[in-house]
């Protein structure tokens, strides 16, 4: 495979082509930094106010991958999120990593969204940003753990998608070839751009903020768009646009009675083997 950096000057010559510079949108989510959970009893939605928040850890790999593609090919990385106004400050932290632009979709109409309504709102944001070649999401968020927004968003945009991407083998102005992790290995998948990918942790190691970008982040203006700004139909946003409803939540009980095995190593091993073999557990040699 020819190095992309070598090809770049050639592509720049034929500027009538859709620019080979990549316009990348990275979707990020604010998640609680702690495992403590507070619920609004009336609406049965999670109270996000008043809990320390971080960017979903998986999304940091998505941001990093966006930056790496831009460094190779040129272009622009825009971070997009949906949430309460204070999320804007979290987005600022991505600018200190090198992101060019940050957009927050924030509106009462977006509140209480499930994955479908979230995907719809994000798709409207991406349409307004315009000329996007690639959307990158983390494989899932650490609060909901659904992994649904990426594929659902791709569908709303009408673009192809690949989940669990662990490596981008090749990316050009019009297609991407990547490796998707599966249960027993991986698949190599090729798609035309624009497309959506969701990435796993293995894909890269996120960088630290640079001093220069931290200065830039301080002054950066984070765009905040409402449902009207992106032309979203409010019936499809937030609680209203969410087919699923949480009817009850509960903290699971851990009723585990541990049995401790005493003795020296050899005695412990013998007792454990007795126990496991008497359980007839499936030893499949």
């Amino acid at each position, binding site marked *: 495979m020819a190095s992309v950096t070598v090809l770049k000057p050639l592509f720049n010559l034929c500027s009538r082509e859709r620019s080979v510079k990549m316009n990348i949108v990275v979707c990020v989510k604010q998640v609680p930094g702690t495992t403590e*959970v507070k*619920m609004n009893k009336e609406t049965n939605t999670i109270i996000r106010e008043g809990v320390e928040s971080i960017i979903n850890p998986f999304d940091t790999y998505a941001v990093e991958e966006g930056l790496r593609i831009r460094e190779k090919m040129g272009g622009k990385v825009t971070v997009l999120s949906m949430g309460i106004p204070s999320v804007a400050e979290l987005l600022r932290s991505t600018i200190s990593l090198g992101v060019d632009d940050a957009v927050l979709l924030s509106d009462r109409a977006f509140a209480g969204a499930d*994955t*479908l309504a979230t*995907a719809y709102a994000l798709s*409207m944001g991406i349409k307004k940003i315009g000329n996007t070649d690639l959307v990158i999401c983390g494989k899932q968020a*650490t*609060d909901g*753990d*659904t992994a*649904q927004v*990426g*594929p659902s968003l791709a*569908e*709303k945009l*009408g673009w*192809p*998608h690949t*989940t669990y991407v*662990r490596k981008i083998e090749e990316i050009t102005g019009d297609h991407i*070839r990547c490796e998707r*992790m*599966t*249960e*027993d*290995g991986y698949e*190599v*998948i*090729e*798609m035309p751009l624009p497309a959506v990918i969701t990435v*796993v942790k293995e894909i890269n190691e996120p960088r630290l903020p640079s001093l220069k970008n931290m200065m830039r982040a301080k002054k950066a203006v984070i765009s905040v768009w409402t449902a009207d700004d992106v*032309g*979203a*139909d409010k019936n499809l946003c937030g609680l209203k646009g969410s*087919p*699923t*409803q949480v*009817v*009850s*939540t*509960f*903290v*699971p009980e851990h009723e585990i009675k*541990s*049995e*401790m*095995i005493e003795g020296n*190593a*050899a005695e*412990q*091993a*013998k007792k*454990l*083997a007795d126990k*496991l073999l008497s*359980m007839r*557990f*499936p030893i*499949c*040699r």
Partner: protein
Amino acid sequence: MASIRIITEKCYGCRLCAGTCPFGAISIIDKKAVIQDNCTLCGACVSSCKFNAIEFIRDETSEAADLSQYKGVWVFGEQKDGEIAGVVPELLGEGRKLADQLNVKLAAVLLGEDMEAAAKKLISYGADEVYLVDHPSLKRFNDESYADILTQLITRYKPEIVLMGATTYGRSLGPRVASRLNTGLTADCTKLEIDREKRLLLQTRPAFGGNLMATIICPDHRPQMATVRPKVMKAAEPDPARIGEVIRPDVVIPENVKVKVVDVVTTLCEKVNLTEADIIVSGGRGLGDPKNFALIQELADVLGGAVGASRAVVDAGWVDYSHQVGQTGKTVGPKVYFACGISGAVQHLVGMSSSDTIIAINKDPEAPIFKVATIGIVGDVLEVLPALISEFKKRLG
């Protein structure tokens, strides 16, 4: 039923709506917008029109009546290389219970090439009907073509419930299909029940890394879709004498599919699939040194299990990421899970706490791993593991 139409007197043919439509379902014909049959009534075009020329009627009350058209429980018969995925018999076992409570049929959907034998197998596991789409282009799982065909089938046959495994494929296909149908999808369910009075599927799933359980319903949209975590539901017992019907529905096989699966690679080190393994032996930093990780492999080999690892040792480069168990790795639920020298950070626990039997070996009696362990051994893994290996070697011949 909701309806959408262009008020032609107001339409100027400006094309704004056509550009907004996520489905490419609006064409401009004779300078007027025309909504095509592939419109999904998502309503995205309505607000794009500067002339209020699109009328969208969302009839809430009649929608409720509409739901009664949807009948039956479906299971997506995930396959790889013609082999039915391990989660499918579990889905059929659970689906059978739901279908019996609702007094409807249980059907499986099977896409692939030369799948007749697999279809029979699905019947033996409890499916009353198998919707079989046999085509060379469907040999391998492909998000685009599979989503397309599954959507066609759901739209035509209208099942009220669709279940898929919360596997790599299921978690990718499910949201794509649910999004196209504009219906609800609940991820990674660990419990399914029926509210018979309201005829609703109660879907319970863990969130916040297992610290919170939520029960979710999808009251006004059909089908009610859920992905189900593997190794949680009880698999149906196969009965080769069971009788069922294999239906070969007439579907449009998508051409010019954009997503191309160039290669499928099974990595050797994962000969035993972690998410499907009955026994997993996992190692953590308590092993002290990367070379001691060989003990984990050895015990796994003796027991015929798979090798897992904590995030700490994966990050330290002792073992490949594909072995990582936990929130940032894989979620597993084997019959027996050995945690050797793993302290049990919450991120690790959420990935393995649904295992049937958890055996913790750690020298720190206060380690959080003992809180979830069925059997605990306080001791040095470097002494206990060799003892266990020789004990099992002796017993198992």
